[in-house]
């Protein structure tokens, strides 16, 4: 049997479709391996950890995981790491026995978003944030990064509204803020689906362009809005590379080639700011990857 | 089959009907003919199969074999719609009324009057059409009344009114009078006579043989799922019917007390209830006597019994047992004191129908068949078997569900529950509702035995024959008040009724 490599993500989301494309690409180049891309039934650490248990039991040889709750999954990670090589992606658990982390820094991404805001709002502003899970690590880090970057620049992130990844609520949260807080002149969408909901709500209220929007990730609506000039910009990670490089990394590691793992165990794939100037090039690249 | 050529063609024939349930053969080769315009009484002991046979005719259940011939057309089975379509109306033994709808909606359920372009329900027309039907059965409630507010007897009147509303050629009445008092029963007799006069046939099932004697043209007797015989108008008599039903003669109902009256056991002083909050009832029951409680429908007898038993709150007055105040805060406390109630509605409050017979018998006293909180199956069964033998409960075994028993046998299970404990005072609310004569006599004998053993016995009954035949003293309630009491010497239907109706 071929060795099996698994990529386990934290929840179902379009974002991971890109990583899946990267994994597919890697599969073409790694015919000697059987690559799997797994979604958990729900986005909880408990389910992810038992999914990993089952994968190991079913004979998987190496796992790369984006944990929903890495800080508190150290023991579960160590249990897995004792049996097969374990890598983290998206969010790290440096205290565990994982081999390496491959991904971007959410704090850095937050800072980049803050910088977009500073550039677009030289006169200061009152911002409202929107996110799926307020308590999730990536949300906490992005929010912190954003706050750090706008500190002392007259820009204030007044509040962040959570919606539990319910798109209906994501939309009505924006509607309600538009109704209840007329002083808000800047909005930040922290999860990939938040900016499109902001876009739709602003469009319905006829306020496109009046409120500065800073986005995360590369939803087609987000990119469209950036191109149109309705959004100031978006910060994108590169999940395609996580999937692509991650699989190669694990395959090499299993073959005994450990050169891909740096001393500090951190392989950072930098996040990029996409604005009106580079959006077309970026979108073309995306299309090529998913199409291919 | 039928010999007479000169008779008109039969309206319907139930031909060689068989019906088996898991564990029971309910009907075996039963053949019955019904002529237009006749009143056919169907009688038999509990569990003889009367209701089952009628349910087959009403399309509610399918026979295992046999044919139903209507107007010369044979069917293997009927649906409810077919049955109604053939002009068969059915007053069910179990009340099938809907307490979330009003009276008129109940009467016309399934055959609503419509109006308007969309065929919507015409509430006004239905209420108007319902009123004469209610008048015919002597109901004192209007068509717009919510059924939730009706008493059991009133619901029975409603069921009869509903059957009248069908344009029927045959009306089946399965114990229509079981909750009715004399006055309503008289109205019912008149209704039957009217139907007959219009050429409508009536199949009348009752355990009140007086009624049967009064109204039937012909009697068919079922015993153990088979036809035991028939009686023509001329042959109908109490004794003849009883002989066919149970295969022997029956002694007189009344047995005098075997001992002189003892001290007062239960004493009610100015008891007030919420339905008639201004009326206070006072009465007492002494050791050795059977106190009958009579009254019209809705006189407040059930309410009184339930209040004494701790089900509903009293609004005033006091209840004493053996001279000491009785704790009536809950059934649990009254049961602990030895005061038991055999409730009026055994399906709802008397039995857990889905539980086994043996479970039901020990339901109120599991403590005594268990040790350290764990139930002993052996003792549970022994206790049930003892009651089954003592009361003659007809069942294959005591592990069967109570739901599978006939009405009379169900009532015996309720009695078995209390008799297996230590009664000090038992209140029987309509104890023989829907029970055959054989079982009735048994129950009367049991009541007398209890009274003779010094247990207080109070019997609420709407069956005049029973009240007069069994009691040592009759207390009549009217609108929650004691209208008067009669001693044995003054017993007569006339006197009871006079008190019940009020001397206006």
């Amino acid at each position, binding site marked *: 049997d071929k060795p099996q490599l698994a990529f386990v993500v934290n929840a179902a*989301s*379009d974002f991971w479709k890109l990583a899946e494309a990267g994994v597919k690409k890697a599969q073409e180049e790694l015919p000697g391996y059987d690559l799997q891309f797994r979604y958990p039934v729900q986005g909880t650490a408990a389910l992810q950890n038992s999914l990993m248990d089952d994968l190991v039991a079913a004979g998987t040889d190496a796992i790369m995981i984006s944990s929903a709750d890495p800080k508190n999954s150290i023991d579960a990670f160590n249990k897995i790491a004792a049996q097969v090589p374990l890598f983290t992606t998206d969010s790290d658990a440096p205290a565990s026995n994982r081999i390496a982390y491959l991904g971007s820094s959410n704090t850095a991404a937050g800072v980049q978003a803050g910088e977009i805001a500073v550039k677009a709002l030289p006169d200061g502003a009152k911002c409202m944030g929107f996110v799926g899970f307020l308590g999730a690590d990536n949300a906490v880090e992005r929010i912190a990064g954003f706050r750090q970057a706008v500190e002392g620049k007259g820009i204030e992130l007044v509040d962040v*509204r959570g919606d539990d990844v319910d798109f209906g609520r994501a*939309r*009505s949260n924006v509607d309600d803020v538009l109704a209840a807080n007329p002083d808000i002149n800047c909005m930040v969408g922290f999860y990939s689906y938040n900016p499109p909901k902001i876009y739709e709500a602003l469009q319905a209220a006829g306020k496109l362009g009046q409120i500065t929007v800073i986005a995360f990730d590369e939803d087609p609506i987000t990119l469209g*809005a950036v191109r149109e000039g309705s959004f100031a910009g978006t910060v994108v990670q590169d999940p395609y590379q996580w999937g692509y490089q991650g699989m190669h990394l694990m395959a090499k590691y299993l073959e005994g080639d450990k050169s891909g793992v740096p001393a500090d165990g951190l392989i950072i794939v930098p996040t990029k700011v996409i604005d009106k100037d580079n959006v077309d090039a970026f979108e073309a690249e995306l299309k090529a990857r998913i199409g291919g | 089959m039928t010999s007479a050529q000169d008779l008109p063609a039969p309206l319907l024939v139930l031909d060689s009907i068989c019906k088996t349930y898991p564990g029971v053969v309910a009907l075996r080769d039963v053949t019955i003919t019904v002529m237009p315009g006749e009143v056919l009484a169907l009688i038999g002991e509990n569990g003889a199969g009367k209701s089952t046979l009628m349910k087959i005719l009403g399309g509610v259940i399918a026979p295992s074999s046999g044919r139903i011939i209507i107007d010369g057309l044979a069917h293997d089975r009927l649906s409810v719609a077919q049955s109604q379509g053939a002009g068969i109306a059915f007053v069910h033994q179990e009340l099938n009324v809907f307490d979330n709808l009003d009276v008129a909606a109940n009467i016309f359920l399934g055959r609503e009057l419509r109006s308007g372009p969309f065929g919507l329900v015409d509430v006004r027309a239905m209420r108007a059409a319902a009123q004469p039907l209610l008048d015919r059965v002597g109901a004192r409630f209007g068509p717009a009344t919510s059924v939730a507010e009706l008493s059991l007897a009133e619901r029975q009147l409603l069921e009869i009114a509903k059957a009248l509303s069908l344009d029927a050629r045959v009306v089946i009445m399965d114990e229509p009078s079981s909750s009715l008092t004399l006055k309503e029963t008289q109205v019912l007799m008149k209704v039957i006579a009217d139907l007959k006069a219009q050429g409508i046939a009536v199949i009348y099932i009752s355990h009140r043989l007086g009624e049967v004697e009064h109204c039937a043209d012909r009697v068919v007797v079922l015993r153990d799922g088979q036809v035991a015989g028939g009686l023509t108008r001329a042959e109908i008599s109490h004794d003849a019917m009883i002989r066919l039903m149970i295969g022997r003669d029956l002694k007189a109902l009344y047995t005098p007390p075997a001992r002189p009256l003892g001290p007062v056991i239960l004493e009610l002083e100015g008891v007030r209830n919420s339905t008639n909050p201004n009326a206070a009832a006072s009465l007492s029951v002494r050791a050795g006597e059977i106190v009958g409680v009579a009254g019209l429908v809705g006189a407040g007898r059930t309410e009184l019994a339930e209040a004494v038993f701790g089900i509903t709150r009293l609004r005033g007055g006091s209840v004493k047992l053996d001279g000491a105040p009785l704790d009536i805060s809950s059934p649990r406390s009254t049961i602990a004191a030895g005061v038991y109630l055999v409730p009026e509605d055994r399906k709802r409050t008397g039995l857990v129908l889905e539980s086994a017979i043996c479970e039901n018998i020990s339901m109120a006293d599991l403590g005594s068949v268990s040790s350290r909180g764990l139930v002993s199956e052996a003792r549970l069964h022994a206790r049930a078997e003892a009651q089954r033998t003592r009361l003659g409960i007809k069942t294959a075994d005591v592990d069967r569900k109570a739901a599978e028993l006939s009405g009379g046998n169900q009532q015996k299970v309720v009695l078995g529950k209390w008799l297996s404990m230590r009664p000090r005072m038992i209140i029987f609310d309509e104890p023989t509702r829907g029970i055959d004569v054989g079982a009735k006599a048994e129950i009367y004998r049991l009541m007398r035995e209890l009274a003779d053993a010094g247990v207080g016995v109070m019997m609420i009954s709407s069956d005049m024959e029973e009240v007069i035949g069994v009691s040592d003293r009759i207390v009549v309630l009217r609108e929650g008040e004691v209208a008067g009491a009669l001693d044995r010497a003054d017993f007569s239907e006339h006197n009871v009724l006079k008190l019940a109706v009020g001397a206006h």
Partner: protein
Amino acid sequence: MQKKDLGLAVLIIVVGFVVYLRNPLFLSPINLANTANLIGLFGLFAIGQGFVIMTGGIDLSVGSMIALLGVLFVELIGKYGVPWPLAMLIVIAAGTVMGLAHGLLITKLKMQPFVVTLCGLLIYRGVARGYTGEATAGFPFGATFPEVEWLTIGRSFGVPHSFIAMLLVGVICWVILHRSVFGRHLYAVGKNEDAARYSGIRTDAVVIAAYVICAVLTSIAAIYFAMFTRSVQPSSHGNFYELYAIAAAVLGGFSLRGGEGSIVGVMLGALLLQELQNLVNLLGIPSSLNFAVMGAVILAGVLADQQFTRYRERQRARAMELRGQDGRSAAG
């Protein structure tokens, strides 16, 4: 309007007034319109749920149906370019089939409604997730469907069309439930199915019809939701919506034992739930407390309503008593 509905209406007004005092923007046209839109969306399938609850059943599958049918609708018009009227027909037909399946399994195979629709909840969501491979089904940027959008997210005189749709559906359903023969039969079946059968009612047909009505209204709601969110994430879209629908019905006076409830009630129930959601955002209460506020108000509301009903009954009894005494003294 029944008395029970009146109590709910009072609660809604009281809550609304309190919110208004703390933030007058609550009654601003824009906020009212936003909330009305959501009331419309949720009201649509809550009414459907009402029919099922009336039979003494329950439909747990509505959230998953909204996800699956939402995916279907978005894919049909967005990806396959099916004309929108046809797409709507297909979605509603698919919903009808599901409702029919529920009804048949429950009546003909005598399965418990809870079990059947729990399986529906699992299967429909599973299919939606499997079909899309966990990807979000959405329209490309800039895609517009003027007619569908007018129908679903459009507004006339500031009133969202989803709200109008709910009112229309509400009126039709009111007539069906409270004035038609079918409605009577539904009440009867919900109260006592056996007895209804003895009365010659085709109880199975009535129950099946209730599930079909619920499914049809849910599929309409699915279209509205899909157009509102403009994209459907199959793993989270519509999660827990069955609980909203049931809560709306129960708040609106439906009994889960069947045979009780009114259309006005369930619409008011849906209204109250959305008012509560809106309140959290308007008063700037942390979103994390959203659930707690909603739970507390439902509990308090149902409790208050019940206590009030009891109090009124006691008052009535006392009044009767007094009248009785008068009557007596006059007679004496």
